[in-house]
């Protein structure tokens, strides 16, 4: 029996076989049970949101909810302008018949037989009727989201993309410059400068909200996208990561460039920057992630709808009277999509980046 279960080729045998061909023991079953349970807990909520975002209005408010997006099947019946919804109706003798609903009055519904509309309307108690459902992907949540309120969502998308791209580019150049100075020059005060930069780790933005707001407003940048870019472009961990990487670049390369009369700036951006791409990629990924997801600073600095980022617009959706779950779900999906796609391609960089620095 045991041999049969673990025989190569069978699916069970594949799972039970350990890497390296050693037979599995109970700890392996526990491990897989835990991991598979984890997949369900981690993945199901997000899949549920994505599935729900493709549900039509009636399907969304239905309880118990349907797993897949569905809609009530409808037919065009002769003599009626609009398509009529189909219902499966239980008759007194236990048999069922499929009828089209013309209208509903209280607990009774008037229906016609779609095959014989000329036979006239039949009155049916609603608790006897069960709608006929079919799988149907509704894209109306997305189309409404992208077109409603004069396409306000597009300005949120633009703002978020602008902040993310501009802040990341500046972060890369600025942090690389500092890292270059701190790794390739010996000068008095270099340790002090490094310490000053790293010490800012001790000042999380949550505890300097009021003064940052004051400075941003003194600079005239309240309700301006630069107001959420400037405070965050210097990332101490980015400087540190880049500096550690640049230390591994041999100094002889710089000397050779200097022999060729290259200016220090040219050495920086023609030699050091290209050689630091792996570290720059990690810093870029983390910067994009943080800027795309920023919430607290935009919340206090960007108050007008036209400067809202996606995150602020999404969070604000709950405040409007009558939450429109359809659009909310579509927006949630759209907001998460770019990073989710990026993650699929860049998982290795992200996880090794975290493992080696303990930052995000």
């Amino acid at each position, binding site marked *: 029996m045991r041999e049969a279960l673990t025989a190569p080729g069978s699916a069970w045998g594949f799972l039970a076989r350990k*890497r390296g061909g050693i037979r599995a023991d109970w700890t392996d079953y526990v491990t897989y049970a835990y991991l598979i349970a*984890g997949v369900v807990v981690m993945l199901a909520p997000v899949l549920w949101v994505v599935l729900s975002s493709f549900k039509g209005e009636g399907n969304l408010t239905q309880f118990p909810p349907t797993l897949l997006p569905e809609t009530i099947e409808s037919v065009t019946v002769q003599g009626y302008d609009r398509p009529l919804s189909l219902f499966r109706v239980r008759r007194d003798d236990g048999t069922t018949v499929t009828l089209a609903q013309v209208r509903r009055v209280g607990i009774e519904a008037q229906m016609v037989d779609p095959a014989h509309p000329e036979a006239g309307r039949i009155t049916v108690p609603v608790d006897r009727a069960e709608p006929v459902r079919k799988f149907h992907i509704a894209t109306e949540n997305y189309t409404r989201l992208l077109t409603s309120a004069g396409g306000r969502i597009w300005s949120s998308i633009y703002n978020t993309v602008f902040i993310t791209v501009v802040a990341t580019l500046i972060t890369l150049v600025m942090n690389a410059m500092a890292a270059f100075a701190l790794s390739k020059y010996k000068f008095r005060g270099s340790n002090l400068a490094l310490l000053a930069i790293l010490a800012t780790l001790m000042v999380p933005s949550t505890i300097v909200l009021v003064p940052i707001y004051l400075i941003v407003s003194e600079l005239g940048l309240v309700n301006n996208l630069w107001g959420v870019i400037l405070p965050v472009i210097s990332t101490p961990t980015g400087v540190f990561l880049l500096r550690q990487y640049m230390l591994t670049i041999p100094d002889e390369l710089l000397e050779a460039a200097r022999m060729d009369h290259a200016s220090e700036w040219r050495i920086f951006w023609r030699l050091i920057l290209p050689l630091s791409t792996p570290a720059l990629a990690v810093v870029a990924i983390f910067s994009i992630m943080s800027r795309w997801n920023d919430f607290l600073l935009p919340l206090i600095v960007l108050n007008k709808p036209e400067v809202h980022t996606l995150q602020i617009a999404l*969070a604000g959706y709950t405040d409007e009277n009558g939450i429109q779950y359809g659009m909310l779900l579509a927006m949630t999906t759209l907001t998460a999509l770019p990073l989710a796609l990026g993650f699929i391609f860049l998982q290795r960089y992200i*996880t090794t980046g975290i493992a080696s620095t303990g930052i*995000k």
Partner: protein
Amino acid sequence: MKGFEEKAMGVLSAIASLPARAVEPLMVLLQRVLGVGRLPWVFLLPNLTVILFFSVLPILINVLYSVTGSDNLYPSERHFVGLANYATLLECGDYLDPSTCSRDLFWRAVRNALVFVPSQVVVMIGFALVTAIALNRRIHARGFFRGIFFFPVMLSPVVVAMTWVWLLQRDGALNGVLGAFGLDRLSWLSDPARAFKWSIFVTVWAHMGFYTIILLAGLQSIPADIYEAAKMDRASPWRVFSRITLPLLKPVLLVVFILCTIRSVQTFDEIYVLTGGGPGTATKMIVHYIYETGFAVMPRNYGLAAAASLMLGVVLFLFTALQMKLSRKGQDA
């Protein structure tokens, strides 16, 4: 795949060096005027300027705000009140009963944090550790499982909160599943105790992957031959865990513990969107109090917000200092 990654990085660095081309003439001039010896400071200038304006100055201004009154934002319009803001925050008839405090919301937030932080940290590290150990075993599809546990870290706090709002609403999926087992619908987020537990669960769900990755790296740095030796001695799995894994993982665990605590104390985004701090004040955290006092509730009380920020800052500073001390110790060992 590899080709794509390299291409993407090439494009990134090409774009990143565009502004660099523009400033070249200026930098060449500066090099000539200042000499190579002073040039590093030019390279450091942008960073140090940002740090001065958005890290150093804010701390000083925070101190200034915390000892001045009035709801005016501009320091020149504010009058000195000494330690009155701190006194107001700390004034309490009975510290065990927030309703006797002059700023009862602050104390409710503190009390919430005192329960939230330890619970969240324990649950978070517990699950992260179990997951890391599972992922460190010889398993199939390790990359897939690691990705699944990690991906919520990429989601924004707002997306995370919205996802769970949708799942936990009255007609939501969770109640649907319960209904399938013949159970009644529950309101998960409008009951104080349940909302608090869900706040812990949702934040753990969102951030667990981050700590899992750090712990996994720690586990992978434990030499394999130690485990081989234990296997020779036919040590039980529990013994291997308690005598080898745990002691060798201790330095990493400490770092994770402190990182997690520092973040936990500052929890705001997810809960703000998930429950709005409610029902009532059941899930209001300290940063939420600072945000409300300084920005959301009129008249804005910048002084109180600054005083609360500084007190939170001291707590965070102590944790960070502890972390630095411990990680240095870990490097020496």
